[in-house]
């Protein structure tokens, strides 16, 4: 299903792409975004991360609408209509990111949030204090790039061994005061309570590396 949608996306927006099969979903949640004339919209509570030709990573967060079109290289051009998009792109394959009233050629890691018609992380704009709107460009110091990449990629790639994962649609769960399960935002009082704490113990047996050590 998703392959069909990606095929539709690429057929519609990047007919000259040499590597249409290079689009891979590395992580997603919620309903699969539908593509119409290159326009993709993620559902509330959903997100999708694409790795394109092993070169660039494009993440659409919840309630995000973008328009893809053919880029200069293997990575597409992205126009952000609304929501939050994250792009990781090397210098050899920069991603042209545009929005209403602005544009930026992404090299390195870049996050752009555009809620309510005003970008909060556009280059040259005053940046609002928020934990997830750190701006970094190719000219940024190493530590900033590493930190940003680390946060972004830790979630996606750490230990995955390149496992392609598509999680199903699911809302987060919490318990009400009576101890029964319910969906966040769906309770009668309208008060969302913190779920009880959980302690996860992870045991990793020594895997006996090659050589019999």
């Amino acid at each position, binding site marked *: 299903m998703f392959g069909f949608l990606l095929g539709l996306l690429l057929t519609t927006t990047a007919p000259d792409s040499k590597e249409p099969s290079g689009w891979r979903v590395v992580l997603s949640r919620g309903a699969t975004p539908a593509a119409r004339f290159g326009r993709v919209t993620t559902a509330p*509570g959903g997100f999708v991360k694409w790795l394109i030709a092993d070169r660039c990573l494009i993440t659409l967060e919840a309630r995000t609408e973008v328009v893809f079109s053919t880029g200069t290289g293997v990575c597409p051009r992205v126009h952000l209509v609304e929501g939050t998009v994250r792009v990781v792109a090397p210098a050899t394959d920069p991603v042209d990111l545009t929005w209403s009233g602005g544009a930026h050629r992404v090299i390195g890691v870049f996050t752009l949030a555009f809620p309510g018609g005003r970008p909060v992380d556009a280059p040259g704009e005053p940046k609002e204090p928020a934990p997830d709107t750190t701006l970094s460009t190719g000219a940024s110091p190493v530590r900033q790039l590493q930190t940003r990449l*680390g946060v972004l990629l830790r979630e996606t790639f750490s230990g995955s061994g*390149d496992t392609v994962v598509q999680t199903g649609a699911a809302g987060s769960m919490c318990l009400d005061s009576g101890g029964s399960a319910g969906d966040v935002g769906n309770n009668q009082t309208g008060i969302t309570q913190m779920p009880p704490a959980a*302690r*996860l113990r*992870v045991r990793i047996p020594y895997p006996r590396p090659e050589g019999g*050590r």
Partner: protein
Amino acid sequence: MRRLAFALALFSLPGCLTTPAEDKTRVTLVVSFSAVPAIVRQSPDSWYAQVTLSGGDLERPLVATARGLAGSDADLTLETTSGGPRRLTITWFYYTGETVETWTHARSDLFLVPGDQTVEAALVRSPEFTLEGTLRFPGEVPTQVQLQDLSTGLTFPAVQAAELGDSSCGFSLHQVPVGRFFLLQVRDAAGVLHSFDDCPVFSSRPGTRGFEGDLADLSCALE
């Protein structure tokens, strides 16, 4: 430069160096660190494990790390809110003294129940690729080339660069795990470490990838 920085750091940390007047043969060095120093290199025959737990209902991924010697099991504990689904990833680096073996485990279907819960993760060896590159340099030939794993900050063993003539040199880095992002770092003849920030090294499949870089302006390309 690094030694000088370390020496300065020692003196700036809370601690003391005392020589009891009544015993001139004993010197006691007491140093306390305000933060746990980051582990950037491993000892031979040791492992380093990183566990991450993430999910759409968590504000940010949780990370726990541990290290140990060959033959020992790892045991880590993460505390967070119950719920799910959560994505659990485990990266386990084993340094043989010559190369780093990368073992991984990942699952995305983890629901955390309130209270205690234990999972046992079986690791599998990560596929690997080879990075072959050429570097242009001003002045003398660089001495070392290495990769730094972006997620953990661990540096993989350095290799020597081989001079090719015409102010360029070549290198080969083997057993680089797929599916991870690395920074390529080059130590020049003066001992200064340069980092090619604009070209994160990544491959999703085994084989060989090429890297070209210029130490003069740190321009680069990954092929």
